[in-house]
């Protein structure tokens, strides 16, 4: 076991983690000793897969203001958004984009040399009048450029990284005022050794858990580790039933094709060539928010209007955009279609279908990124930002580009808050034997205690989640999913890890990750069963309407007990309203 002491420890080196690290190192007014721990290498994180853009009301190409952006975000989130947080995000979006430009991000430019902007789903002028050009972008690799730019600036400022250190637990020290976060425990992939990082503040920026689904735009490594760790500590997770399905995944594969394609004018068509979004969202059509477009696509297929030999997808038609727009503004997705489906978007429409994309829910935080231990109290020293967190700026459905915004605005806020906390507090003693739990977990997984294969359990988990908990849900399908997940948890107790070595044991890593996936799948399904209404990304066929009387509230999930199989206690948290009253959501 090795021991380290830092002021601030950041877990995760995607956009939120690196933005937090830079804020702590360069903006806090003092320089806390900061370490960034990542289970990957810094530029491997899935921020790099984001394509289309990052919205901010710069008004570089047409009239816009951050209040419209706030409204769009709240309406897009089907009014489950905490409105104070959405206001902060939309307001700080402008500086967030300008900060990135000053750090060197190569945004596409207008003819005047300003940052160019394009249309994106659900972003509108004057509260829904028409689509507005708000998304700042770098071709269709905006996330790649954000990730590279943040890493470049981390190099510039000498941020210390611990690469391929897999955090498996946090240290909570009990005080008379409740638990305080005092560090994290990591497994070093290269050696199998455990490391304790004692810290005054810990920031979780660990990303999402898309791998509970089979068809997903998410990386193999997005297994909800951070959310799982927090949940297992008895701390709550919020709004986990709200999972976003991005409309345009490459059919059968789930690889993302940016909404920016539709922002540039691409059109969704069914088998007969009809522009079907005209029926579902007459005003902004193909640029309706993702939940609406994904449901419309699924309905087209369900009602027999799907394209292809099995009528199981629809078509994204980019052919009228011309080769130049595709090659200059959408080069990556053009190449994905060519490489993975052998379809050339310049000449023919691309088969697409919704793909599991983004967790609206996560670790509840306030607007400073402080993690909540219940509705009213925080865990001092513990912060979260990015997809693993729930502020909640996305509510029941995130608007496109708002995730890149979220990681920059709230990553920065969490980094600043953590640095400020570290400056004003002493290191507290760690809890006794902080590594015992992780050491036992690793030893158990490596012991001979069964023959169940990780791949089999994961495959079955993903199959049941795709079949029973995706775009449309019912009591029946969700009960089936819950039953399946719980049965898989039983089997997980007999998991076999074939690689018993200490050196780069990725076999062990996958087994640990699967445990988190099972945990989070159960929470998602439990929340979806309990929420007997349809709101944003959560669509119940048996309860097709939004029910503000009973469900205008955040779900809060608490794990009861220590084992993998344990009860989930469901509680509720009020939604924060400022100036926007819930309205019917029409586009």
């Amino acid at each position, binding site marked *: 076991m090795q021991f380290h002491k830092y002021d601030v420890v950041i877990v995760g080196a995607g956009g939120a983690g690196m933005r937090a690290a830079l804020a702590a190192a360069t903006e806090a007014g003092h320089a806390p000793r900061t370490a960034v721990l990542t289970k990957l*290498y810094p530029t491997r994180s899935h921020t790099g897969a984001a394509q289309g853009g990052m919205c901010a009301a710069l008004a570089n190409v047409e009239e816009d203001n951050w209040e419209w952006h706030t409204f769009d975000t709240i309406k897009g989130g089907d009014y489950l958004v905490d409105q104070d947080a959405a206001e902060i995000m939309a307001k700080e979006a402008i500086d967030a984009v300008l900060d990135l430009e*000053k750090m060197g991000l190569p945004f596409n430019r207008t003819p005047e040399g300003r940052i160019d902007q394009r249309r994106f789903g659900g972003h509108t002028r004057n509260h829904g009048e028409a689509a507005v050009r708000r998304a700042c972008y770098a071709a269709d690799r905006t996330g790649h450029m954000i990730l590279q730019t943040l890493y470049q600036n981390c190099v510039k400022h000498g941020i210390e990284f611990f690469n391929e250190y897999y955090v498996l637990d946090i240290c909570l020290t009990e005080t008379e005022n409740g638990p305080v976060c005092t560090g994290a425990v990591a497994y070093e992939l290269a050696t199998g050794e455990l490391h304790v990082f004692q810290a005054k503040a810990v920031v979780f920026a660990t990303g999402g858990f898309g791998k509970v689904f089979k068809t997903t735009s998410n990386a193999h490594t997005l297994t909800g580790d951070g959310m799982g760790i927090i949940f297992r500590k008895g701390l709550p997770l919020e709004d986990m039933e709200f999972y976003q399905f991005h409309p345009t995944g490459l059919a059968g594969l789930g690889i993302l094709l940016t909404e920016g394609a539709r922002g540039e004018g691409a059109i969704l068509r069914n088998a007969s060539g009809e522009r079907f979004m005209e029926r579902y969202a007459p005003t902004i059509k193909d640029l309706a928010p993702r939940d609406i477009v994904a449901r419309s696509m699924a309905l087209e297929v369900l009602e027999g209007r799907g394209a292809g030999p099995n009528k199981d997808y629809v078509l994204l038609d980019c052919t009228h955009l011309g080769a130049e727009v595709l090659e200059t503004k959408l080069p990556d997705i053009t190449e994905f279609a060519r490489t993975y489906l052998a379809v050339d978007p310049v000449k023919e429409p691309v088969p697409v279908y919704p793909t599991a994309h983004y967790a609206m829910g996560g670790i509840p935080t306030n607007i400073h990124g402080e993690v909540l231990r219940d509705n009213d109290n925080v865990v001092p020293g513990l912060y979260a930002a990015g997809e693993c967190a729930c502020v909640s700026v996305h509510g029941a459905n995130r608007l496109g580009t708002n995730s890149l915004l979220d990681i920059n605005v709230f990553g920065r806020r969490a980094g600043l808050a953590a640095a400020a906390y570290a400056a004003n507090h002493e290191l507290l003693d760690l809890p006794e034997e902080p590594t015992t739990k992780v050491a036992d977990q690793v030893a158990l997984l490596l012991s001979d205690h069964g023959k169940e294969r990780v791949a089999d359990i994961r495959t079955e988990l993903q199959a049941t989640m795709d079949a029973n908990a995706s775009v449309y849900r019912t009591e029946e399908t969700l009960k089936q999913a819950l039953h399946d997940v719980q049965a898989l948890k039983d089997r997980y107790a007999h998991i076999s890890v074939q690689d018993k070595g200490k050196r780069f044991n990725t076999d062990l890593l996958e087994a640990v990750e699967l445990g988190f996936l099972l945990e989070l799948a159960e929470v998602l399904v439990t929340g979806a069963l309990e929420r007997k209404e349809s709101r944003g990304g959560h669509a119940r066929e048996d309860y097709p309407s939004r029910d503000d009387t009973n469900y205008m509230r955040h779900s809060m999930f608490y794990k009861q007990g220590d084992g993998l199989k344990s009860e989930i206690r469901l509680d509720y948290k009020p939604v924060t309203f400022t100036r926007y009253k819930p309205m019917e959501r029409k586009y």
Partner: protein
Amino acid sequence: MTAATVTQASAGSRGDQPPVPDGAITVTVKIMRFNPELDSEPRWESFGVPALPTDRVLNLLHYVKWYLDGTLTFRRSCAHGICGSDAMQINGVNRLACKVLVKDLMAGGGKHTTITVAPIKGLPVNKDLLVDMEPFMEAFRAVKPFLITYGNEPTRERIQSATDRERFDDTTKCILCACCTTSCPVFWNEGSYFGPAAIVNAHRFIFDSRDEGSQERLDILNDAEGVWRCRTTFNCTDACPRGIQVTKAIQEVKRALLFRR
């Protein structure tokens, strides 16, 4: 190297195999294995794997790991050519395993297909296909791969014309996968050479009209281990999974050095 062993799907050590999809053919995946905890030197091991023509090579490696031999070790994350984790030699050339499809590797004329996979060359092998990336990242960090500016920052964004932005567009695509650097014969022979990827990232800033650090960066690249080592073999350009004109970028940096004030 020791003699090859073949592990067939039917005789895998991890129990029953999953159902084989319609249209799958069995290909041999021949992998260079090396675990310094157990092996004194690298060895080849072959696995029979059912594959669809549309499968990525990464799918085949996952099949081996998940159903035949859990000790097989490699990096991967996004699985669609964006994160740069899974660079390896596939049939002797540097590729990302998630961007090469089986149909493009099939033996013609109904012959049996063998796909050879080995770690990228020139970096220490830690285990199987997983190499130590630190020397590579060190070279990247050494060229000051970040925007350098002096004076006060503007309140709004810096103005940059679309043409000036286009000037360095190609080299902004780099994902630091190391395919280029580890395909370079100069890098194989002299590991101290910065290598193509570092120069690509220097290029990205040298030709950015907003940057004021070109002279510092060019000084670094004028070093004995710098751009002059490049012998324009174009291996790097061929290897780049992002289609970056790597050799051209290196030539442009050389020219900038020759004609700088």
